[in-house]
Structure formats: structure tokens, C-alpha cells
């Protein structure tokens, strides 16, 4: 931001400039106000659902789908509105999908970024970078389409066996629409975001450090990993936060491939855990949004939105907090 000193000392304020500053400042304020309104209204609509259920909102108890149905119909029938909602299966589904996709993506993105910045031959680098950018801009509905038409049938035919189906037959049906499909495709979606940020961070590592390490007889691979990646840690955090926010907010693709049932995949089922269906928050909202007209349903949906909003704010804060200790040893922010 450039503030030439002599202008500030000008006794005569130039009117157009003053007007412009006030106008633009007002614009910024308007944006702030709008967002504040958004937050306030979302939480206000969400409040009844939270107040009725308390902390049990996040707990388990009964089938989430049936509860949703009950809430919806209670609004119609103009009787005592039902707010009972125990969202644990949705919470669990969201957690597992997000954490799984971010973990898978992080490892791949890190290796691919190191590869792009340091070890890939030039021709490969020239292909990989545009491809990463391309993947980042493909709309999620197309990922969903590919998922539904390719990944889900593949899982249904080649991964799920009849034995698997029988073992959980009374609880849930395994159709290929599953946690696995969601995690896999989501990883492919968020990896390019991470790679873009990681590559930027790795590229600005001061050459002096890398050269210094090479000059001490450490080979290129270790030099880059121990010094380069370490120096780029703030970028790693930033990229991960960005990708996690995206994963939390991914709506359409997950709605299409994860199965649309409010079911909490059960780790006790062993490997079948991965092929069980589920439905994370954003997808649930998308698939129940026609029911907004019913007041208790609307409050419940907004409650889910409030959880999402709060999580992404928490995520930004966590990212900021994670970067603080890194500044001590000199990693650039």
C-alpha cells in the first residue's frame, strides 16, 4: 500500500480523492456487513435446532434419515414441531471422508510437488503443471458424473463381494456408492489445490540453503526433503487448510457418489468399512433442500450449515496457529 508522504501533508484535501476513499471504504464496509449478516442469519435460523437438542445434536441415537423425515412431516402437520436430531452418522461421515481425502491427497501432493520443483525432467514439468491447473478447474459435477459412471460400478463389481453384502445385509445395502468412492474422487479433486500451493512454497526456498546442504555432501533427495520441504512448511500448512476447506464444502460430487444415506460406516466391520455408504453434511443439505419450506426442517438444515461455517472458520484459525511456531526458526511465512 503506497502512501506518498507529501500528499498526506497537503493542507488542501482534493475532493475527488476524499470522496473516492470514503466511497471505496464504504464498499469494503458493505462487504463486511453483508458477510456479518450472513453469519448472524445462518446461526439465528440454526438456533432452534441446537437449543432443542443441546450437545446431543452431535451425538448418535436413531436413524438420521428417519429423524429428518419426522422433522419434515412435523412441520406440515402443524403440530408440535419435532426437532429431535442426532447427527452423529453425518458427523462421522463428514469426518472420515474429509480426513481420508486430505491425508491421501497430502502425501501424493507433497511427493508430486517435490517432483515438479526439483526432480522432474523439463518435458515432464511442462506437461504436469498445466495438467494440475486443469484438474483444479474441472467442475465438481463432472467429477461426480465420472464417479457415478465409472468408479461406483467398478467398486460394485470388483471390490464388493457377495460375502460382503450378506454380512451387512440387515443394516445397509452395499451398492458401490460408498465412502471409498467419495474419498478417492475427493482426493483427486483437492490434490491439485495442494500441489499449486506447495509448488509455490517450494520454489521460493532460498537457494543458499539448498546449495549449502549440497556443499556439505548431502545428496539432492535428502537436501530437498530435509531443508527444502522444512523451509516450505508454512506453505504446506496453507495448502492443507485450503484443501480441507474445499473438502468440507464439497457438495455435489459427494452427494452423487457416497450413497445418500445417513449411515455411519462402522470401523468394526473391517475392510467393509470403506464400501459402506454415507452422506456428509454438505451433501445432506443439498439433498434435503427441497424441504426448506417446513420450518423445523429449515432450522435443522441451517443448523447443518452453521456447523459447516463454524468448521471452516475454525480451520482458518488452526492454520494460522500452526504457522506461528514455525516463525521462530526462520521459515518464511
Amino acid at each position, binding site marked *: 500500500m503506497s502512501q506518498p508522504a507529501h500528499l498526506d501533508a497537503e493542507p488542501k484535501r482534493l475532493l475527488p480523492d476524499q470522496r473516492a476513499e470514503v466511497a471505496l471504504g464504504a464498499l469494503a464496509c458493505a462487504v463486511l456487513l453483508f458477510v456479518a449478516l450472513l453469519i448472524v442469519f445462518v446461526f439465528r435460523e440454526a438456533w432452534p435446532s441446537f437449543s432443542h437438542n443441546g450437545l446431543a445434536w452431535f451425538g448418535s441415537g436413531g436413524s438420521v434419515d428417519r429423524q429428518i423425515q419426522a422433522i419434515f412431516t412435523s412441520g406440515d402437520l402443524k403440530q408440535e414441531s419435532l426437532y429431535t436430531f442426532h447427527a452423529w452418522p453425518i458427523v462421522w461421515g463428514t469426518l472420515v471422508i474429509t480426513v481420508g481425502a486430505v491425508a491421501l491427497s497430502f502425501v501424493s501432493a507433497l511427493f508430486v510437488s517435490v517432483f515438479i520443483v526439483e526432480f522432474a525432467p523439463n518435458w515432464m514439468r511442462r506437461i504436469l503443471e498445466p495438467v494440475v491447473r486443469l484438474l483444479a478447474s474441472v467442475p465438481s459435477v463432472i467429477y461426480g458424473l465420472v464417479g457415478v459412471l465409472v468408479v461406483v460400478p467398478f467398486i460394485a463389481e470388483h471390490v464388493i463381494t457377495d460375502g460382503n453384502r450378506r454380512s451387512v445385509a440387515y443394516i445397509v445395502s452395499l451398492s458401490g456408492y460408498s465412502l471409498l468412492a467419495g474419498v478417492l474422487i475427493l482426493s483427486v479433486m483437492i490434490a491439485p489445490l495442494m500441489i499449486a500451493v506447495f509448488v509455490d512454497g517450494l520454489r521460493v526456498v532460498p537457494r543458499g540453503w539448498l546449495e*549449502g546442504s549440497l556443499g556439505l555432501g548431502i545428496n539432492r533427495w535428502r537436501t530437498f526433503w530435509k531443508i527444502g520441504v522444512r523451509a516450505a512448511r508454512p506453505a504446506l500448512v496453507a495448502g492443507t487448510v485450503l484443501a480441507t476447506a474445499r473438502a468440507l464444502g464439497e457438495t455435489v460430487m459427494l452427494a452423487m457418489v457416497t450413497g445418500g444415506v445417513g449411515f455411519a460406516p462402522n470401523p468394526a466391520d473391517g475392510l467393509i468399512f470403506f464400501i459402506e455408504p454415507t452422506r456428509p453434511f454438505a451433501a445432506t443439505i443439498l439433498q434435503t433442500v427441497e424441504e426448506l419450506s417446513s420450518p423445523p426442517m429449515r432450522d435443522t438444515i441451517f443448523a447443518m450449515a452453521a456447523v459447516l461455517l463454524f468448521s471452516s472458520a475454525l480451520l482458518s484459525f488452526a492454520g494460522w496457529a500452526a504457522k506461528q511456531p514455525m516463525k521462530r526458526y526462520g521459515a518464511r511465512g
Partner: protein
Amino acid sequence: MGELSPPPIRKLPLSGDGARVVETPEPNGVPAPGLVSAARRKAVPPSSLAIERMRVEELSIAYGRKLAVDSVSLPIRQGEVLALIGPSGCGKTTLLRSLNRLTELTPSAYMRGSITLDGEDTLALDPTALRRRVTMVFQQPNPFPMSVFDNVAYVLREQASRRPRKRDLRDSVRQALTRAGLYDEVAADLDHPALRLSGGQQQRLCIARALAVDPEVLLLDEPCSALDPQSTQVIEDLIVQLREEVAVVIVTHNLQQAHRIADNVGFMYLGQLVEYGRAEQVFGAPREQRTKDYVSGAFG
């Protein structure tokens, strides 16, 4: 050829009335025969024997079409400090970097001639292994973004084939820091972030790092050019001390510094080694006219 006491540190004015001639033993132009086997220098008692460690023969280095070093030959000996002097762009840094094959980081670099380390051709060695025996300290201090301890320990950890024990690490780190003359200043808090040390301390830390791996040759690329005079003196004393244990090659554009600490001097100009000899000879009675011009300040 051997002396009983370390050679005196010369602090002579360059020429003119104040010049004094110090009694030094007859310079022996014939270098000692190099060690045939790759015995570690620790087997050699720390005397002031000048042992040839590396030899450069008819070395030429070109970047693309530009010739940076032109047919240079000189020996590098443990027990002596070799200073490479010359104006900017004369190829002395390129020559230095070729000694540990850092020139290979530039894709267009092309080398001809030979460099041998203890009789072995450096090109035949694995570059990473070579760089552990011939380590380098750079012009701009570049401590890693870690603590003081980790900076030195990093090198030790990365080179060990098995994870070294913390106790062994601590001893090695302390030893390296002591050799670099830094231990007393940082012993209180080894976890101090390295980037918060002063410039001189950072550079000594870099020297400690370079010494941690027990190299045979230590290369220094204008190590004091970014430092204040006090730090410079500390490091110069350190370098002279170290030459008993490692062969030291220092590139410097500071003639007084070269005069203060060098045993042998190579003057380079436009890629050629114009003159090579004992320091008092190159500075006191240079053979070549160009050398005389440079040393007396006619051009820089």
C-alpha cells in the same frame, strides 16, 4: 622441510619502506609425495608437514561457449592455506567450485583436465561422497532454519548410515563447534535459532558444519566479505589454525586478507593462472607484470 613451531602469521605491509623481511625457512618448491592410499588424515600426526591433498592439472571449465577457467594447474596442500586472488570474474570462484564439483549444478558447465584428491580422480568419485571430503563455506552465511545444534547435527545425521545416538551426536557437535571457535559463545543455549546469531557467528557455524564431517579439504568462498572487521579477524585466526588439520583453499578479493593468512597464492586473471607461488614471493617480488599491477592496486 618440517618446522618445530607453526609458521608465523605474517602481517606485512605490501611494499615500500615499511616492508620487513621475516625469517622464514627456505621455501621448498617440491611438494611432498601424495599419500597413495586414501588414509584419513587423522593417521598423519598434526605437524606442519605440507602434504599434497589435491592436484589440479590443466583444468579448463567453460559455461556454454564462455571459457571461465583456462588450463590451470596447481597443488593444494594440507598444512597450508592457498589463497586465490584476482579481479571479479577472473574464474577463481569457478575454480573453487569445481574442486567439489558444484559446477555441475549448472547444466551448461563443461570441464576438461583433471582434479585428483589423494590420487583419485574426482570425476570418478561419487559427487556426494566427494563433497563430504571436500566441504565448502559460502560467501553469504547460510545457516539452515533450525537451531544451532540441529544445523551441525543435520550433517551428521544425514551422513550416518544408521541413526546416530543422541549422546554421540552431542559430542560430535560440541567438537565441531569447538574447532570452529564458536562453542563458548553458544554453549549456553544450543537450541537457539541459528538465524538469530550475528553474521560472524553464523559464518563460524557454517564452518563448524563444514568441519563436522571431518573433511580433508575446506573450501572457503570469500567467507568474510559480508562480515564486519572483528568477525573477519576471528575467522582469519580460525582459518590459520585449521590449516594443520585440513587443506584450506580460500577465494578472496581482499589482498590484505590474502597477505595475512595465505601460505601460497594463486593470482588469476581472465580464467588463467597468471602466477602461483609462496605468498611473500607473489606479494613481495611478483614475476609477472600483471601480478605486479594487480597487487600494487593498478587495477582491481
